[in-house]
């Protein structure tokens, strides 16, 4: 695999083939843990860890895994890493662990992890799989953090840091850091609807629609540019031909 392809494996999932926004995978956590930015970011970290580890191990074992039991083997590998990540999270980030609840276990059945194992790690070497895992992990984290920022700001009116990552609160002298945006002294424009499940569906739906609209607009513009360029070239050719004739 060339350097260019390796770079592509890492960079394209960040936006161009983003697992959530473009491939439309992994919607359950994208709705369930995006009530607050911190929870979404924590989920993104755990997700990236699981994805990278399972991608690496599966690509390392890809020559030995028998074809008949491919999927069960992948699931066992993924479930193991989820269990390991769960234990580390419970030990070192207990607040995050209790915020995410069963959604850490549910990483086992996350379509992205299994999908990358099937589509990429089973066909490529260890290094590209590692890059692919990191790229998809970061891409997914960016996507869920975007949803979470919208939901937290609209839903609670402010961004809160230190509730899940308690060390941030410790740095601030034991107090949670609250960034007032829509809610502050004397005004409150927050709509708790956006913290509710219904609000989650709505935000994700509208964000996806905006992305589709932007992509369509870009494509249309490209097409229009191409058309204009073609037209101009034609006119130029016609003018040249006219000039020739006049001579």
């Amino acid at each position, binding site marked *: 695999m060339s350097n260019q392809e390796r770079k592509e494996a890492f960079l394209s999932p960040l936006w161009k083939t983003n697992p959530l926004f473009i491939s439309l995978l992994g919607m359950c956590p994208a709705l369930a843990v995006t009530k607050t930015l911190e929870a979404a970011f924590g989920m993104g970290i755990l997700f990236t860890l699981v994805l990278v580890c399972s991608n690496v191990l599966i690509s390392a074992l890809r020559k030995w895994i028998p074809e008949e039991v491919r999927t069960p083997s992948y699931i066992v590998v993924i479930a193991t890493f989820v269990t390991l990540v769960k234990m580390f999270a419970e030990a070192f980030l207990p607040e995050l662990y209790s915020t995410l609840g069963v959604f850490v276990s549910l990483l086992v*059945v996350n379509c992205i992890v299994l999908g990358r194992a099937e589509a990429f790690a089973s066909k490529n070497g260890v290094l590209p799989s590692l890059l692919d895992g990191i790229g998809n992990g970061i891409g997914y984290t960016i996507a869920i953090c975007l949803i979470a920022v919208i939901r937290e700001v609209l839903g609670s009116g402010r961004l809160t840091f230190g509730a899940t990552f308690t060390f941030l609160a410790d740095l601030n002298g034991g107090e949670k850091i609250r960034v007032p945006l829509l809610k502050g002294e004397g005004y409150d424009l927050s709509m708790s609807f956006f913290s509710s499940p219904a609000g989650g*569906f709505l935000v994700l739906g509208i964000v996806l629609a905006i992305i589709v609209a932007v992509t369509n607009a870009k494509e249309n513009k490209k097409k229009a540019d191409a058309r204009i360029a073609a037209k101009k070239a034609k006119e130029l050719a016609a003018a040249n031909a006219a000039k020739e004739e006049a001579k």
Partner: protein
Amino acid sequence: MNYLAAFVMAIISYALIDNVVLSRFYGICSFIGVGNKVKSSLCMGAAVAFVIIMAAAICWPLYNFLLVPAGVAFLDTIAAILVIACLVMVVGLVMKKFLPALYQSLGIYLPLITTNCAVLGVVSENIASNLDFGMAMANAVGTSVGFALVIFLYACIRVRLEASSTPKAFKGIPIALVVASLMAMAFMGLQGIGA
């Protein structure tokens, strides 16, 4: 009697108030994927219900009488996913043998029940929340009913949706999510029952 009342109440609340798709966010992939034919949505609901109830009924004793006494409670996720994968295979084989037409129409969605978060979600929830067997089964039954109900309703809406003209950018998944949002809002009205 008191326990029976709590059991029924739990089923209702798991099915309607804390609906599996609309407020616990499990099984959204299959909710959006399968939901365009009313009949296959019902079959999907039934298949998922079977797997959820069986998985909950097998995993609860497996966890409490085998894994915990053996001191390997941390293997819960792996054990659960293996049980679910086996169950899905059994459902697939039985359907292929006795209901081949249905097997054809469900197609690729059948193996995907393994990765339907609703199934693992219910089992993990039963373990994490330390529910007793009755409540664990109430969770399984309520969740199955809720899942079948929601994908059936969604399929009915989807039939109308395809006949109407949606904005270009919203076609497909985005409008499906907006519909889900409206359904969730309707289900929000049920909050507070029995509390």
